[in-house]
């Protein structure tokens, strides 16, 4: 270029070049990049597909299934897998394929509900602590340190005992009340580092109030980490639910959840093992998928991960 390269002229040329070729070089934004990186991770894609399949199965099958998940029919008891009953039947003659879907609904609903509660508490607590900083932050974090000492499941059991009632809602409360600490810490750390950003200072310099700074400039930028946190918390919560139901403190018969089904199958594991295998495998596959998804997302959302 022989012209005097003033800023505008140069930028004008770049613009013109874009206009001629019709399309801009490549629309690259964080989410598209992340999606492309995620797609390349084969394990994460398979896990994602598996996760969606399990969700669809739990959602749709109970509607179209010919069997009532709670109808007792001793003439059909303890059947092995067949075309009519893909997973066989349990000792009460209930179709396990239908019951697993119904139980999955409960397990997954509790899982998502508790995860949502964890995120909500964690984000509010963490962002408050990180945003205000100083003495409040110090106090809130020391309080969190103290809570960290509490073991997760005993705390959930005590909570359930205090509420004195076990259904889906109390399970969500019990499982979220002792597991939001890590999320709060993650959000706090993220907010602390983001608030030193130049664009936060720039926003303040033109008069942005604190809630705008927090809501517009800080929290949206923690979204990537929160999405990962969802898929890390979800399996922990689902396992917690299964455990509580298995030891008889959670969902109780005749209602189904995967944990409760495993508990029922425990009595007949020698003679009719399919009854405990089916819910266990269901739990394991969902947890495995969620973990793989979290792993894939972490790689995909980290801009430092360069595709080779």
């Amino acid at each position, binding site marked *: 270029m022989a012209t005097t*390269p*003033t*800023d*505008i002229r*140069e*930028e*004008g040329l*770049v*613009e013109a070049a874009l206009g001629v070729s019709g399309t*801009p070089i490549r629309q*690259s*934004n*964080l989410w598209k990049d992340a999606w492309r990186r995620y797609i390349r991770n084969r394990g994460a894609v398979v896990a994602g597909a598996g996760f969606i399949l399990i969700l669809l199965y739990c959602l749709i099958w109970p509607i179209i299934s010919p069997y009532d998940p709670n109808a007792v029919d001793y003439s059909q008891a303890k059947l092995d897998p067949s075309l009519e009953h893909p997973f066989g039947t349990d000792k009460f003659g209930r179709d396990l394929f239908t019951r697993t879907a119904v139980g999955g609904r409960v397990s997954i609903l509790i899982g998502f509900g508790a995860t949502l509660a964890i995120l909500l508490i964690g984000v509010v607590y963490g962002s408050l602590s990180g945003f205000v900083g*100083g003495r409040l932050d110090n106090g809130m974090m020391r309080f969190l340190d103290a809570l960290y000492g509490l073991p997760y499941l005993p705390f959930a059991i005590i909570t359930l005992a205090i509420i004195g009632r076990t259904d889906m809602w109390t399970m969500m409360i019990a499982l979220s009340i002792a597991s939001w600490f890590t999320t709060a810490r993650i959000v706090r750390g993220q907010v602390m580092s983001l608030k030193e*950003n*130049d*664009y936060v*200072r*720039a*926003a*303040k*310099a*033109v*008069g*942005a*109030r604190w809630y*705008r700074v927090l809501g*517009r*400039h800080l929290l*949206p*930028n923690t979204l990537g980490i929160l999405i990962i946190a969802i898929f890390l918390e979800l399996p922990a919560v689902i396992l917690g639910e299964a455990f509580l139901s298995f030891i008889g403190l959670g969902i109780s018969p005749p209602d189904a959840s995967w944990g409760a089904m495993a508990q029922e199958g425990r009595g007949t594991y020698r003679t009719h093992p399919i009854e405990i295998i089916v819910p266990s495998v269901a739990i394991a596959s969902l947890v495995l998928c969620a973990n793989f998804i979290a792993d894939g997302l972490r790689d995909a959302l980290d801009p430092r991960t360069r595709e080779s």
Partner: protein
Amino acid sequence: MALLEVDDLRTHFFTREGTVRAVDGVSFAVEKGKTLGIVGESGCGKSVTALSIMGLIPKPPAKIVSGSVMYEGSDLTKLSERELEDVRGREIAMIFQDPMTSLNPTLTVGTQITETIRRHYDVSQKQANKKAAELLEKVRIPRAAERLLDYPHRFSGGMRQRVMIAIALSCDPKLLIADEPTTALDVTVQASVLDLLDDLRHEYDMSMIIITHDMGVVAEAADDIIVMYAGQVVERASTLDLFDNPEHPYTEALLGALPQIEGANVRDGRLTAIPGRPPDLIDPPAACRFGPRCRYAGSDDCTKHEPQLREIRSGHWVRSAHPASERAGSRKPQEVGS
């Protein structure tokens, strides 16, 4: 009356190592429609001065210990955070050094401009969009209306700084503080951004404070200049007077360190540098702060007592026992270290 009057401003940082006196008794005034340049090397308190005016210093550890910042009759240091928020952007706006990180990457440029407009004015989103497009045009961004929908990563450094200027101007502030507005840009882009700032200042009838370590930038843009050293103002004069007749040994040395490409002062070989380093602001020298690096410092008064800022001639203030005009003939320059 001046638009902004800073009087004996002292901003200290209370750290574990001790109290850092980052800004230590700074006074200056910005007249309506004029540009004031603040120059000095890194760590001399230029930026902290600006942030103190805006009330944006990190508290803690920093605190405005004393002094006042009078803006149109009210003392900004006495305002509550809420009142300050209304001043920022609406009355006084600020642009920062690094345009690459000063825009939020997750919001479109248009959103970031219109949010500022709607923060201070009660207008509809549609009106704000219209104003934003006009602003982008004003800062000479081609195809302004379309580019409102773009995210910051699709803009170059120079264009981002233009967007920052557009945001700063969006609420018609009376004073614009530009903290090293061109430091992060290419030299060619620097010139065009400075031109733009100067044009817009006339158009909007604003006052401006330009903070820089680049003597070339202030020579071009400023009406008056203050030179800062170790948290203090060491010289204050009109731009012409300062460049023609620098009085403080530090200013002389700064100008002497500039490379010349034409004229009588072209040198061969190495550029002259100022020996030594700026003093530690936790425990600055009790006497003249420039003393240890000053080639004229002798065994006289200035090594024992802190010189005061005095008006050596009309409009030209200097903080030194040995300003150039009192030195000539009567004193022989002394070599440092001898």
